[in-house]
């Protein structure tokens, strides 16, 4: 009996028929519709391909071109890094803090508040409201407010000025940022055992910040990894918001990002090989950040 149990225990985590059946729909569909296109795209990144003629092998030329033969790429890289460094960590903190702060209200209040925060993501194109607010003439809400308060005399072209355009993109990105990382935090916080908090209160935890640091964050580590990956993905992939607000091309390429540059190369100039190479470089940057964040999160638990 005992040996039988031991044998069973050693087999507990083995793949059996049931497990294979459960994982194969995902693995097959994933291989065909996600992985295979990525592999093709990586292969295309070493070629010249215009979607009409057969791809022509170029070796590493596309990659060299980014840094030596493309005046716009360094600008796009600089803007993307700035946007990622600012909106990534801030978006991560914001989506966690809002989920944490609403977690102690009653179910009805939490449902309403989380709906309010998530509504821009639910609408998809909600950034249009910022075009109205930051409109460059004296009728734009922010300009007319500042003029009536005598802070400025002439309307400011917020979205057409190099120094302000990118910061408006930052604000809008953060404001729209309560997406799946916020929702996953809400769901994760929901599943924390409330007895942990009661025990901690008895053990002498006196305020919500200590509670957050000693209980919530350690328990939430797996979910926080997920939400940080989502933030990395969205922080490096800013494009639609920048184009909608500041136009494409933006003034002096002040909001040109790697994503909008890649779309320009692929859609306007039909250089799919080069666009793929840009995509691979963007991926490498995100993968690097992902590894870094994984290391940081691991350290926080020790």
């Amino acid at each position, binding site marked *: 009996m005992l040996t039988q149990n031991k044998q*069973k*225990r050693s087999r507990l985590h*083995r793949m059996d028929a*049931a*497990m294979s059946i*459960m*994982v194969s729909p*995902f693995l097959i*569909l994933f291989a*065909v519709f*996600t*992985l295979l*296109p*990525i592999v*093709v*795209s990586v292969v*295309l990144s070493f070629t010249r391909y215009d979607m009409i003629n057969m791809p022509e092998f170029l070796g590493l030329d596309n990659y060299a071109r980014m840094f030596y033969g493309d005046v716009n790429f360094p600008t796009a890289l600089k803007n993307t890094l700035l946007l990622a460094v600012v909106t990534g960590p801030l978006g991560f903190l914001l989506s966690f803090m809002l989920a944490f702060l*609403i977690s102690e209200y009653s179910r*009805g209040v*939490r*449902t309403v*508040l989380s*709906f309010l925060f998530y*509504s*821009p993501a*639910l609408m998809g194109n909600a950034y*249009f409201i910022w075009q*109205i607010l930051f409109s460059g003439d004296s009728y734009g809400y922010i300009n*007319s407010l500042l003029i009536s308060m005598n802070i400025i005399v002439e309307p400011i072209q917020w979205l057409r000025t190099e120094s302000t355009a990118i910061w408006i993109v930052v604000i809008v990105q953060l404001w729209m940022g*309560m997406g*799946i990382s916020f929702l*996953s935090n*809400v769901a994760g916080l*929901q*599943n*924390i*055992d409330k*007895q942990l*908090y*009661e025990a901690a*209160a*008895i053990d002498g*935890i*006196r*305020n*919500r910040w*200590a*509670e957050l640091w000693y209980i919530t964050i350690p328990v939430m*580590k*797996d979910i926080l990894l*997920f939400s940080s*990956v989502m933030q990395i*993905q969205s922080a490096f*992939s800013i494009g639609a918001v920048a184009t909608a607000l500041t136009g494409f091309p933006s003034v002096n390429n002040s909001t040109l990002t790697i994503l909008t540059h*890649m779309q320009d190369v692929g859609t306007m100039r039909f250089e799919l090989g080069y*666009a793929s190479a840009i*995509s691979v470089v963007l*991926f490498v940057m*995100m993968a690097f950040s*992902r590894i870094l964040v994984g290391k940081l999160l691991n350290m926080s638990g020790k």
Partner: protein
Amino acid sequence: MRSSKQRYQRFTRSTFGNIMIALILIGAGLFTILPLIYSISTSLKPLDEILAFPPRFFVTRPTGQNYAALPGLLNSLRVSAERYFINSIMLSVVITIGHVFIAAMAAYVFTQSKSRFMKIAFTIVQFTILFNGYTLAIPQYMIFSGMKIIDTYLVYILPALPSTIGVFLIKQFMDASLPPALIEAAKIDGAGNFRIFFTVVMPIAKPALLTLALFAFRDAWALVPSGTIFRDELRTLPQVMGQITGGGIARSGSAMAATVLLMIPPIAVYLLCQSNVLETMSNAGIKE
């Protein structure tokens, strides 16, 4: 029980902090709901108010004419509007359920299996999330045409089923809240993986499953095919609404009305799922 709860609240919360946090949350909430209110307000504006300069935020003389114009616009189509509505509902429901179910099963195997292959597979899945989809459109199109699924419902459904984000979300959630001893106990008792999945894992993972469901539904409802659907009968409601309301500035009121109406299903699914997420109590008895 009651006394411990009272003590816990007294020790860790201050009234001042509670009030400040409530004010911040209300302020932030009002700020993020602005576009929705603006859309509803604009959909009720008569044409002259829509075109008014400077633009006004709130409607002054609300009218239902933008909504009333929609049936007429829809009747001008060759295919009846119900067909598009049915297409959209059917695709969204099939994709959402398939998406969540396939991801949940895979996530369970990824948490349970200790095999090297599964570990590598999960790492690949995690990292593919970071590959931007833009350059994948052409390879995907070649795959669709190789499979001969272009211009069928399958071209909507099949690529939308494997959810890398969903597998990752549910796997992380299971890692955080599935006690390994519980699964082992069930296995030693002779329960198979299917039974454990349905009776033990699914209930515990419910918040993550519902979160993925509302997220998947939002994307599925907004599906607009790009160059993969040519038959009118197979088009979706958002696509057709976009076509009929894209007819110049005179239709911008109706376009806003259509936008507002199209937001109702995802908002309804959101509220339904989210209030269920928030209803689940943590499984104190199951935790060790």
